[in-house]
């Protein structure tokens, strides 16, 4: 489909193919639900955790495609087609990464996502887009190379031809016989390498730049579902090694990485001057919490997966809203933003509700996993992590709420806010309200199919 779009060079055909792809993706997700744990084409298994994250992606396909049609509508045919072709490729590669049943196949798909994302970040062809793309490709490539070293260390554990595909199933059988030093090195390399995708400390800078420059519908995807790809890669290796003696080491590394991510996110959000960069730091904060949740163990595992799903819906709706905000205010500079409630009430409500949801303030569904993480920290007696996390979260709440309130209700501080707003249909916010509605609903009711899938995803982890 992606190649067809480039070859046919017709906007209407491109629209039809992209919409068709979105529907096909949803159908495929349903198929995966109906065939849970089935292996197809040797390298793909519809595992619980894979299907869970695939479903989150599937929910976003239609909003992303719709917002993409609007965003790219003024582009010439070539740019329009490249955008949609790369979008389809990105969704395909992410799907492959979710369903991969071995380290090597997973690594290949993660590498491939970099290609598609590079084309999408560079969409506007500006100097700043080139810089962001360059940084993204360069740091991701370095990360991918380091992650590959982690994969090679897994290979060293094996050293046998019969296990050359490094599938998770075959690896799990011999992990306990492996040298713990190799496991620790492999985990550290995998964590550093895939944190370029997950947006976690120490490789978080790449995602911040990419999210702030990419077209809003793409920011919505790469700051949620693409981050989930990085999370999945780290989670797979963590699950694999969890039965070995390196479990405490992995937990400590994840908690340190998570805490540092929270610290950096809180610090930079306090001095944020660019709205999209602030949202990108908010993603860093949430991924930091996910890492802490995994490191906590016990209830933290459930909390981590639930948080990942809810963060996907919330953050994507906020980034979709950025598309409309840029057409109304013509800027993302916080000093130049203001009076949004007067100019675009529906968008203001999305921002307000999105802020409540992403800050995990009840009735946000994110309150549940964040409360579970704190509960896990209390249960483990990790008081320092608990107190530090709460203080840092307070900074995040202060930084984000003051800035969003300023955009909605105050006058712009800058002198550049003189451009008249474009006409934006209020109906464009419908998909954002639906996604945020899902997040709020999950504060009160978590459907059994979702709870069961999350529980199946973490059943191999130690309790």
């Amino acid at each position: 489909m992606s190649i067809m779009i480039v070859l046919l060079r017709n906007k209407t055909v491109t629209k039809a193919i992209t919409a068709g792809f979105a529907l096909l993706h949803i159908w495929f997700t349903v198929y995966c639900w109906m065939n849970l744990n089935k292996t197809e084409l040797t390298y793909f298994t519809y595992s619980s955790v894979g299907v869970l994250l695939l479903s989150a992606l599937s929910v976003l396909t239609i909003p992303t495609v719709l917002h993409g049609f609007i965003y790219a509508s003024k582009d010439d045919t070539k740019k329009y087609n490249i955008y949609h072709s790369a979008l389809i490729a990105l969704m395909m590669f992410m799907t492959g990464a979710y369903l991969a049943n071995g380290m090597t196949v997973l690594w290949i798909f993660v590498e491939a996502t970099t290609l598609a994302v590079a084309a999408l970040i560079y969409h506007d062809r500006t100097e700043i887009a080139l810089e962001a793309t360059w940084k993204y490709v360069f740091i991701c490539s370095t990360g991918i190379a380091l992650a590959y070293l982690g994969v090679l260390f897994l290979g060293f554990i094996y050293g046998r031809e019969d296990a050359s595909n490094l599938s998770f199933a075959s690896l799990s059988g011999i992990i306990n016989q492996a040298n713990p030093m190799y496991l620790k090195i492999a985990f550290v390399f995998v964590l550093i390498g895939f944190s370029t995708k997950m947006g976690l400390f120490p490789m978080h800078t790449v995602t911040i730049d990419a999210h702030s420059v990419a077209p809003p519908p793409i920011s919505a995807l790469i700051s949620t579902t693409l981050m989930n790809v990085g999370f999945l890669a780290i989670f797979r290796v963590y699950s694999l090694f969890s039965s070995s003696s390196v479990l405490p080491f992995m937990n400590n590394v994840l908690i340190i990485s998570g805490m540092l991510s929270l610290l950096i996110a809180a610090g930079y959000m306090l001095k944020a001057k660019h709205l999209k960069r602030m949202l990108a730091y908010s993603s860093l904060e949430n991924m930091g919490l996910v890492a802490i949740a995994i490191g906590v163990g016990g209830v933290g595992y459930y909390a981590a997966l639930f948080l990942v799903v809810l963060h996907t819906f919330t953050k994507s709706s906020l980034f979709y809203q950025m598309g409309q905000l840029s057409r109304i205010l013509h800027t993302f500079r916080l000093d130049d933003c203001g009076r949004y409630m007067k100019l675009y009430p529906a968008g203001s409500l999305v921002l307000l509700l999105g802020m409540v949801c992403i800050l995990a303030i009840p009735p946000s569904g994110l309150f549940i996993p964040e409360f579970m993480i704190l509960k896990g920290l209390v249960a483990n007696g990790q008081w320092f992590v608990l107190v530090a996390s709460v203080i840092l979260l307070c900074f995040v709440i202060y930084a984000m709420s003051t800035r969003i309130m300023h955009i909605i209700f105050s006058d712009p501080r800058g002198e550049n806010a003189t451009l008249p707003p474009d006409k934006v249909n209020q109906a464009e916010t419908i998909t954002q309200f639906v996604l945020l509605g899902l997040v709020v609903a999950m504060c009160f009711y978590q459907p059994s199919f979702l709870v069961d899938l999350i529980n199946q995803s973490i059943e191999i982890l130690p309790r």
Partner: protein
Amino acid sequence: MINYLIVLFAITLIYFAAAERLIIYSRLIGMQGVLLCGIAVFELREVNTANLIFIVAESLLFKAILIPYLLGRIIKKSGVTKVHSLAMPGFYLLILSIFALLSSVILANALINPFINTIYMVIALFTLFTGLLLIVTHRLIISHLIGFLIIENAVFIFSLAIGNEMPMLINIGILLDLFVGVLILGFFGMRLKAHTNELTMLKD
């Protein structure tokens, strides 16, 4: 023979630390490509012939010819011939490089494994550390790019160490090479101008 090639490879890494002209970096990358090609030929005796030809051709065409050629063009186009004046001086980098070598020897000995030759582990770790050192201590993006290419070579050596048992891992490493060669050097490297040598537009 392999040991001689590996020692020569280590010497190129030490030379990297001392050199300050970008064209020297480009030539050293090319030389490393030739040495890696030689190591692959002597090491991968159990791999089937077609796979061996593919690996040798890749290391020769990509690592020894295409990548140094593209690097040379980028250097010429950007008009920058030497490393940034604020980069760490070669002398200090050389000392750090020696420390990296010693650390690699100690770490490799702590990781003795029946499946791999320790000398591969030493040299691969040393290559990795050298690449990271170059990225951390230099300022120009072209130096970072060269640091990344050195890390790539570390990955290649690691994969050669278990290449006889797991040839698929070498092929995937080659995929990474192609990815870098085409995308980073061929596309973005050519678009970056001299004044974008320090990327600072995106910051908080």
